[in-house]
């Protein structure tokens, strides 16, 4: 075995660091899905009537739907009656301060490197921590409250700001949208809610950290972010899960609404448990993410680094309604071992002079299958619309695959669309060049991969960029054969 191959071997065989299980007392609903379960979830959370209505409508619609089959990933049929739809850490009473948080949970987040401790103000990131399906802690809430920013768990938002929830819930991703969105709308348990009022620039990064802990549960959270006129927010999302032999389903919905001149930046570092080396276990990550640039000159930017999950199947999208609005999508997706990814974006240009940029980098190693699937749609009235798409793939093994399915639909002649894609492997020449200069083959691969992803990584906020770069290293270094 050559030195390079050895390194690749080592790197691709690195263990998943976040695979531990936390032992907390849990409140768990019985397995299976029925109208009663939907009512139970709603009841547990003391939800207002309109939300229960919404859930039931979604559930009834879900029953009429079939799981889609068009995607380029394979997995055994999911038995939806074999999943626990509600699991929450038991809490006797309402928390007055973070000090009262279950120490087990606190130490879990501590282990994951997420500081829930408000003393650690230096980190400067407000965190909403979601443990299994329930938000357990939100930091910096008061400081944000002074500016009129609402940042809390979804359930609290339902309680305290029902009018906002009612107005925007399902306005971007209606429950009829797709199979998993319908399922989520019926059984979502918690998630994050964020509202930035007019003219406010959010002073710190907002962040949600998702942790799946209980076994045989599905995680169904819902995120709703509303940015009013001339506001700005940068939002981060991170996720991990313990190692389990059974596949777990994660079907979240994220809705973003940007009004006039508002900007939302949404970054994800997804590191769910990807399954073991033989493809056993791992998370099915079937997420619907969509943003609506409702106002003029609004902007939504998605950045994602997808390193985990057995299957990733998601398309963060932008609907560019407002004139001069901008949509962006930056993505790095890595598939190693038996991971599969079918990801990309949809940019729907409706308003005049709308612009979108899509940069997608796919890296496949081992038996990984990586697909980019995108849609650029220019509607009739989108005069002067502009799109640039670039999707590159890097192959790091001889059994992996990289695929591109770009759909382009143009109904306006003034639109300018460019699409380009390349696929290649790390060449022997490149490696030789670096090694010849005294760089170990491991570092050489790492340099090349990092260079390949740089365009996307530089979009991430600093803290995340560092984490993402490390993750890349863990997932891939030395994967050249």
């Amino acid at each position, binding site marked *: 075995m050559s030195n390079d191959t050895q390194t690749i071997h080592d790197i691709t065989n690195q263990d998943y660091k976040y695979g531990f299980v936390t032992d907390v007392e849990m409140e768990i609903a019985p397995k299976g899905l029925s109208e009663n379960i939907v009512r139970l979830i709603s009841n547990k959370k003391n939800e207002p009537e309109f939300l229960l209505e919404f859930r039931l409508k979604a559930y009834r619609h879900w029953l009429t739907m079939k799981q889609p089959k068009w995607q380029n990933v394979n997995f055994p049929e999911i038995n939806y009656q074999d999943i626990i739809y509600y699991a929450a850490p038991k809490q006797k009473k309402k928390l007055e301060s973070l000090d009262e948080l279950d120490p087990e949970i606190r130490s879990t987040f501590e282990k994951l490197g997420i500081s829930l401790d408000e003393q650690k103000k230096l980190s400067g990131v407000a965190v909403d921590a979601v443990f299994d399906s329930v938000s357990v802690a939100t930091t910096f809430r008061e400081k944000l409250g002074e500016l009129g920013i609402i940042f809390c768990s979804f359930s609290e938002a339902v309680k305290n700001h029902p009018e906002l929830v009612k107005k925007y819930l399902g306005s971007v991703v209606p429950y009829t949208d797709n199979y998993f969105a319908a399922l989520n709308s019926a059984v979502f348990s918690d998630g994050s809610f964020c509202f930035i009022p007019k003219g406010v620039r959010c002073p710190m990064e907002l962040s949600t950290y998702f942790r799946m802990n209980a076994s045989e549960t599905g995680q169904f959270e819902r995120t709703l972010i509303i940015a009013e006129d001339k506001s700005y927010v940068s939002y981060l999302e991170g996720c991990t899960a313990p190692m389990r032999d059974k596949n777990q389903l994660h079907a979240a919905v994220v809705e973003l609404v940007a009004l006039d001149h508002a900007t939302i930046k949404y970054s994800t570092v997804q590191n769910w448990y990807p399954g073991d080396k033989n493809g056993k276990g791992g998370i099915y990550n079937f997420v619907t993410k969509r943003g609506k640039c409702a106002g003029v000159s609004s902007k939504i930017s998605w950045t994602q680094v997808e390193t985990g999950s057995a299957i990733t199947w998601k398309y963060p999208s932008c609907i560019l309604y407002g004139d001069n609005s901008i949509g962006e999508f930056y993505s790095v997706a890595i598939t190693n071992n038996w991971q599969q990814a079918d990801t990309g974006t949809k940019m729907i240009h409706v308003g005049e002079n709308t612009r979108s940029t899509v940069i997608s980098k796919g890296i496949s190693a081992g038996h990984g299958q990586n697909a980019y699937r995108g849609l650029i749609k220019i509607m009739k009235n989108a005069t002067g619309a502009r799109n640039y798409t670039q999707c590159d793939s890097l192959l790091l093994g001889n059994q992996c695959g990289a695929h*591109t399915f770009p759909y*382009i639909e143009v109904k306006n002649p003034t639109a300018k669309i*460019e699409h380009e894609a390349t696929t290649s492997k790390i060449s022997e020449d490149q490696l030789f060049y670096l090694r010849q200069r005294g760089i170990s083959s491991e570092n050489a691969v790492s340099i090349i991969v990092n260079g390949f992803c740089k365009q996307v990584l530089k979009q991430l906020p600093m803290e995340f960029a560092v984490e993402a770069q490390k993750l890349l290293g863990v997932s891939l270094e030395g994967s050249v054969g």
Partner: protein
Amino acid sequence: MGILSSIKKREETFKERLSLLEKKEPSWFLEQRRDAFKQFSKTGLPTRKDEEWKYLNLSPLSAADFGEGKTTQKVTLPDWPSLADTIIITIVNGKWDAKLSHNLKELPKEVVISNLSDAMGSRIDLKKNINHPVADSNSLLFLNTAFFDCGLFLSIPDKTAVKKAIVLWHIVTHQENSLVLPRSLITLGKSSKLDLVEFFMGQTEASYLTNNVTEIVLGESSQLNHLRIQDENKNSHHFSLTHVSQSYQSRYTSASFSSGAHISRQQCHVMMDAEKTQCNLSGLFIAGHNQQMDHHVRIDHLKPEGTSSTLFKGIVDGEAKGIFNGKVIVHPNAWHTDAWQKSNNLLLSPEAEIDPKPQLEIFAHDVKCSHGATVGALDPMALFYLNSRGISLQKAQELLTYGFAHEFQVPFDWMKNNFECFLTQKLTGLKFGGAYEEV
């Protein structure tokens, strides 16, 4: 009633056809015809629910009554001066007409031209060459296989270079609502070489439906230069499938030009099923009025060291719709594949639509693949420049569009001038939808 709309009529026609063919064709092929008939009856015409047909609406076709046609008109031969020195095989309404063909005597003796049904009866080796494209499971192919009449078989033996180009001159003289089903099988032996032109033209203004299947089998180190020109009348519909299978070191070069037909779809599927094969595809389409033009290209790299390139240019005017789908599949073990694909599209009117979709599916490592697609309009600055120098807006737009189209070249020098004239004539017909104003 026609074959497409009436099940009863379809069954009757099929029985009749079979009883006539039973004496001519071998049983293995009759079996294939029966299977194809069953398949077509089961699926009918493709609908937009089928991912491969997402953008093309065929419902007007099933509503119209296409069936067997009757001829009333006389056949006239091409008025392309450059074709005088070629070998012309005239195919009238899907059937080869030896009397109307030209210069057949100039072919090398070993070259075989015959009726496909007869050829199959006498040559068992054709069994492995025909009906390759079944893998595409396209119901229009089934329709053709079930019903085609006679067909054409052209075979170039080993080590033969045919000096003069062979032209398959497809014309339709049938009246309204006829279904025309040409079928050809072309095989090239080892180290042979051929220049082939396929012309599709209607000589009536009637609305008919052409559903053509051309199968090409390339032997080791053979070389085929292939030009297709589709210029059917604007009331008709045109469907065609070109299926190419390549052997070791063979080279396939194809250029496809289309500007005719109301609803059309042209598919080209190349199976690079041997090492070191080469395939270069190019295409240009001009769609205006309410035309719907669909081009599907699929290249399968099955073995190592294949090289392929695809260049398609689309010009869409009026209320027309253009569709391009290019798929490159690199199978496991097809190492050192070099695949390149480009689709450029020009939208000339606010009502026009274009849906390009370049697609890459790669299952092998150590490959070099890239694709690109662009959509845009004419550059207003360039138009202004020309316009302000006294060139009329119409002329300026024609000039720029000509410049865009010029990247597409016919693969034969002897035809270049003739084709240029033809192209210019087609561009003059464009309306340019009034997106720009005269200075």
